């Protein structure tokens, strides 16, 4: 303790203190961070329960019978897949107006989501939530998925789905955290700026191939940390920060004994 006290005026003391403070803050945040809802097994959905949830949480914008209004889409005929995608990714209920609804931790648990989906599906026919075996990455061909992804998805989502910019503040989100079901639902329902890829554009098997390709990306990069997998800009940034940074540090050290 005495040794620490003696060094409290050392010129690196503020740096050490700052690092300690950051460490403590980070630790506390990690301990108290809200954890994403754990999915419970899906029950037989209840349209009435979904209707009550809809009235309480969605009707303000979408209208009491989901008919929509100006600027807010009608939900009649969007199908269970659309509800499941929007609500399970936290995009709906929407937090605030903006160029597009952002993903956030979902507000409802799995049972409530299936109730909401059942209710909206009861309003008119639309795409259903795909069965598990339809979205199972193991059943897809990653190489074919790669080719399909490059032609159909990469111009917005980037080469391996790390996201990209669209016009006026809209964006194609990163697909890294999406579940196979959500990816499939997004393709069939075309949320926000995304086009719909119906079964004539991409057959269900091809959709599964794309899911398999995206699942391959979760293995990470064989070359070390992927620097966000956003391409040469990040590499350029890091060569200046790490490469030139470290080497100028070393140069100062080597040249320090200046005459």
């Amino acid at each position: 303790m005495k040794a620490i006290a003696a060094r409290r005026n050392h010129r690196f003391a503020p740096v050490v203190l700052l690092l300690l403070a950051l460490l403590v803050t980070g630790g506390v945040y990690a301990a108290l961070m809200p954890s994403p809802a754990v999915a419970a097994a899906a029950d037989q959905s209840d349209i009435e329960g979904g209707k009550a949830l809809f009235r309480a949480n969605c009707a303000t914008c979408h209208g009491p019978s989901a008919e929509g209004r100006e600027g807010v889409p009608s939900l009649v005929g969007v199908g269970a897949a659309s509800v499941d995608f929007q609500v399970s990714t936290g995009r709906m209920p929407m937090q605030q107006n903006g160029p597009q609804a952002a993903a956030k931790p979902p507000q409802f648990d799995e049972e409530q989501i299936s109730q909401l989906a059942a209710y909206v599906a009861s309003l008119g026919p639309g795409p259903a939530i795909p069965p598990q075996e339809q979205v199972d990455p193991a059943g897809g061909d990653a190489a074919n998925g790669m080719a399909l992804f490059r032609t159909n998805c990469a111009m917005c989502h980037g080469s391996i789905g790390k996201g990209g910019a669209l016009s006026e503040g809209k964006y194609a989100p990163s697909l890294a955290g999406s579940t196979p079901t959500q990816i499939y639902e997004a393709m069939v329902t075309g949320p926000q700026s995304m086009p719909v890829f119906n079964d004539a554009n991409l057959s269900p098997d091809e959709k599964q191939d794309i899911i398999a390709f995206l699942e391959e990306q979760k293995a990470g990069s064989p070359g070390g940390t992927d620097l966000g997998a956003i391409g040469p800009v990040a590499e350029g940034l890091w060569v200046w920060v790490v490469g030139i940074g470290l080497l100028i540090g070393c140069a100062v050290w080597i040249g320090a004994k200046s005459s």
Partner: protein
Amino acid sequence: MSTSTTAAQRAAGGTADYLDQRTGISLAVKNFARKIFPDHWSFLLGEIALYSFVVLLITGVFLTLFFVPSMGLVEYEGPFAPMNGVEMSEAFASTLDLSFEVTGGLLMRQIHHWAALLFMASIVTHMMRVFFTGAFRKPREVNWLVGFILMILGLAAGFTGYSLPDDVLSGNGLRITDGVVKSIPIVGSYMSYFIFGGEFPGEHIIPRLFTVHILLVPALILALIGLHLFFVVLHKHTHFPGPGRTERNVVGFPLFPVYVAKAGGFFFVVFGVLALMGGTMTINAVWNYGPYDPSPVSAGAQPDWYMLFLEGSLRLMPGQGTEWDLWGYTLSLNVLIPAVVIPGILFTLLAAYPFIEAWATGDKREHHVLDRPRNAPVRTATGVAILTAFFILILAGSNDLIATHFALSINDITYVFRVLFLVTPFLAFWATKRICLGLQRKDRELVLHGHETGRVVRFANGEYIEVHKPLDEYERWIRVHHEPRRPLEIEPAEDEHGVRRKGYRMDAIRARASRFFYEDRVEPVTPAELAAAHSHGEHDALPAGEPETQEIGAGSGGGRHAVTGAPLPDEGDTPRPSVQDH
């Protein structure tokens, strides 16, 4: 023990003697070993470039052992599942093999690519050092040009290198190159056909790039590095201003043993950092992009950082109304201006700057003592303006990533950058020049009046004075050594007979350039001014035993004069022997 040492020594001596008798090398070794180099960390920046080039050669040789520079089509069979059975060029397939099957191949690829980025980054940093310290002045203008060509060759090496794997991303880059070449009026389409051996992409570009990348460009770089270093030895190294450092000497340490150890050690540091980066950070993950196919372009398609300014320039250029159809020929100003004219202006300015400055200054003497950047405000401001333009273009080339990472609208970013690109270089020039002049004024102030000590002394008559500590010799020398630079004076337009003088108009232009450089200036403190400032101190000197005598005068000489000139109300109480003054 001693005998073995003797034996070793004898062997070494014998070898040296054998070599010396046959090559006369001892003279060269002796001269070279005693060559003096000055010590400063910024003199090591060029070494980073040299060492990353050595690393590039070593890793590059390894890569050539496995890379197949062919556009022949094969079907990939290998451990990387997302490519299995995909048709691709042999170049791409061999790059995948290098990455996933050759032992140490991925490490070598990544070190090679990081070294390439570092090579360019260190060249740019080194150039900044040379530019801002005025190390390009006579006799080193030619070496500046050699360095400039090395930078261009570095760009060429990088560009030809990252196109080799024949992946989608680098293919996009080649497609842009094709477009840029085609935008050149009249010869463009012929040149494009010449480069690609037909319509893009053709089947020749990869083998051609390979030859350029592994033979032509490295040989040129190696030769020019030799020339560059030869000039460094010939001209001797510049040094920063300091006591004892003049235009006629070099103050530093001998090459052997000091710099042999430092520079040799630094090579391993550079190699170590590159190996660390290559071992831990993915670079150019070609397996993500897939084999080249002219149809897809993915989001986030950018070139390596040193080409990013070109990408940004293209992204900023408005497309509508800038493509003209003239007599059946297309003039693509939307490509020609951002990709040819703007880089042309930036690079020409950079290459020609030493000659422009020498012309405007009219200075034909040799310079071996470096300038402090503040003492050349227009030069420093020009450099900052070029860097600002370059940096804005780099940011514009990353506009989609700025949009996604900072939740901004890409349209707004582009509009803002268009304005910034045209405005900020001028703002940066103005601000830098003002800051430089301000720093020079501060230097002047310090030399004349010394450091503030924060000690306030009250005299018996009630006057307060802050004690200033004069600069020591070393501090003062750095702030006063430079010579004043003034605009050129030109002879009048007509001689005494009223005849118009030849060459007057050229002189007038030159004088205007010179005024642009040196009209706003802060003159360095002259010995007379320094003496005057100090003599005030002597007038106001306090009786012995008061240590702050000198400083007081230096701090407020002018103010005191007025006081000493006036009749003092209470002469007896004032401890100021200003009597001699009257």
